[in-house]
């Protein structure tokens, strides 16, 4: 029974992956671009989930790490001529260091206090990026324009399709890594610290190290996504990375489902496409419609889309098991 369920899961996963690979060949370039961004957000939400979902530290500041990743990629390409694909891991590494360092003072703060501290980081980021002293690199208010990369020679894809598939490949790697990490010793330590910090410490888990490392890893994911986002959008500017971006990430996280790996995908689809749908419904007050969608999702699925699906799945599984037992 359990083995059968596992089989179905693998089959479903493979089918979803095949569908994702086929998407850019069925859609227009603009739609492909939108889905590429959704994948980028999924990577961010996965990182945010590691911190907030699995380690219990609320962050309203991931827009800042996203900005650092995006700017790292843009500056490396623009000033140092680094090839675009190499900027992605470098941006991740830079964010890992920043995240770890920010995680150290954040250790003292909990709950709402941590949310405020991280939100301060997000609010401060555009102003820091506009700062005159670093304008030479960041381009100040104007930002930096990046050229859209061509697919490697001999690959018969257009630029949008190539970027989509590249992002998809990175996303798949990041998801597999996250899955392994969560189901390892480290992941269990994170969850133990979330559920009962004192008991976890008594068991010998180094709270400071693990919490700061959760911050670091989470920032790494966000940085990788930021770099990809910059390449996809071909432009970075301070005002793209306001506090609203961070709040949107939180919305995606909660609506997708906390402490769930697949939740990152649902959340990303929500923050990428629901504002568009809202805009179609009402041109006059699109944000009101977006707000109604948010509240409706919160009512209908309090544990997020992933939590809802898990519940529905276990219900049907129980029902079929019951039917089989009767027969």
């Amino acid at each position: 029974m359990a083995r059968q369920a596992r089989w179905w899961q693998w089959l479903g996963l493979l089918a979803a992956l095949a569908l994702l690979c086929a998407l850019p060949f069925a859609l227009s370039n603009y739609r492909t671009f939108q889905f590429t961004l959704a994948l980028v957000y999924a990577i961010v939400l996965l990182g945010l989930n590691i911190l907030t979902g699995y380690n219990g530290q609320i962050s309203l500041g991931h827009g800042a790490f996203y900005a650092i990743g995006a700017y790292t990629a843009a500056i490396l390409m623009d000033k140092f001529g680094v090839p675009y694909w190499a900027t992605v891991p470098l941006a991740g590494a830079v964010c890992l260091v920043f995240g770890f360092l920010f995680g150290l003072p954040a250790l003292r703060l909990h709950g709402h206090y941590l949310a405020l501290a991280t939100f301060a980081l997000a609010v401060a980021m555009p102003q820091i990026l506009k700062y005159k002293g670093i304008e030479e690199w960041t381009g100040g208010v104007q930002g930096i324009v990046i050229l859209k990369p061509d697919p490697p020679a001999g690959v018969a894809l257009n630029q949008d399709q190539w970027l989509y598939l590249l992002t998809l490949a990175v996303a798949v790697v990041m998801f597999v890594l996250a899955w392994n990490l969560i189901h390892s010793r480290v992941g269990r330590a994170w969850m133990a610290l979330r559920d009962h910090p004192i008991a976890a410490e008594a068991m010998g888990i180094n709270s400071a190290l693990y919490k700061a490392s959760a911050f670091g890893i989470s920032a790494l994911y966000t940085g990788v996504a930021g770099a990809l986002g910059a390449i996809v959008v071909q432009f970075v500017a301070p005002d793209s990375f306001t506090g609203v971006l961070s709040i949107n990430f939180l919305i995606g996280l909660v609506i997708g489902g906390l402490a769930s790996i697949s939740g990152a995908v649902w959340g990303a689809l929500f923050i990428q496409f629901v504002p568009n749908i809202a805009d179609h419904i009402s041109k006059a007050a699109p944000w009101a419609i977006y707000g109604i969608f948010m509240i409706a999702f919160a009512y209908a699925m309090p544990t997020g889309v992933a939590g809802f699906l898990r519940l529905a799945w276990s219900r049907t599984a129980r029902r079929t098991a019951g039917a089989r037992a009767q027969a």
Partner: protein
Amino acid sequence: MEALLHQVLSGLATGGIYASLALALVMIYRSTNHINFAQGEMAMFSTYLAWTLIDAGVSWWLVFLMTVGASFVAGMAIERLLIRPVEHAPLLTVVIVFIGLLVIFNSVAGWIYSYTIKSFPSPFPAEPVFGGLMSAHELGAIGVTLVVLLLLYLFFQFTPLGLAMRAVAQNPASSRLAGIRVGWMLALGWGLAAAIGAVAGMMVAPVIYLDPNMMSGVLLYAFAAALMGGIDSPGGAVAGGFIVGVVENVMGAFVIGTELKLTVALLVIIGVLLVRPSGLFGKVFVTRV
């Protein structure tokens, strides 16, 4: 020296407004452990309501009373209709409902009243007081904040209803056993918070003008003030509000200029929180294993 005094006094005036809104946040936090992110937009909407009434020719203080009353009722209605269904949902899901409310209020205000900036009259005379150190409006705003604080203090300390609300905040289960209607007390808390927010909105609007996004900055400062004072302490929220107002103004005028004002104010607050993680006047909780 005089310039410094001037900045400190006007910091106290804006601080008073942060304090009122911070007080509204604390009201809801104490009874439900939620921080209402929509508090600022609710206050903004109340202020628009006041503007409509003033525009129709009603006198200022009458409008003030009507707006506060209407906001009180609306606050209670929001709690009963929208927040009650997610009472037992995870904390972050409730936060999402708050953010949803925030964008709805913001967007609907923009839709009804447009995004153009409107001026909002002050009930206080235009001439400055204290030999030009302060405008009468600034002094009046401080006075109104202090009156609101005093009224709240009297309400919570000396009325049976206030006592019931404090009991619910401290221990909902026992309060229910003692015959207090917990649900209505929570709704009352929301109503009071909305009314206090309306006061803050009407006091700040003559200074920063009326537009749907007027409260985003104010809410952030109020949030910071509430946390700095200790999120469960009304007195602390007011003190935090005044401190944040003065720090923001003095730093903005003399140290770093207005551009980085918000950033630096937030950094100062985080600095304080790193030293005292539960805020200046907050209760330090000791957890038992």
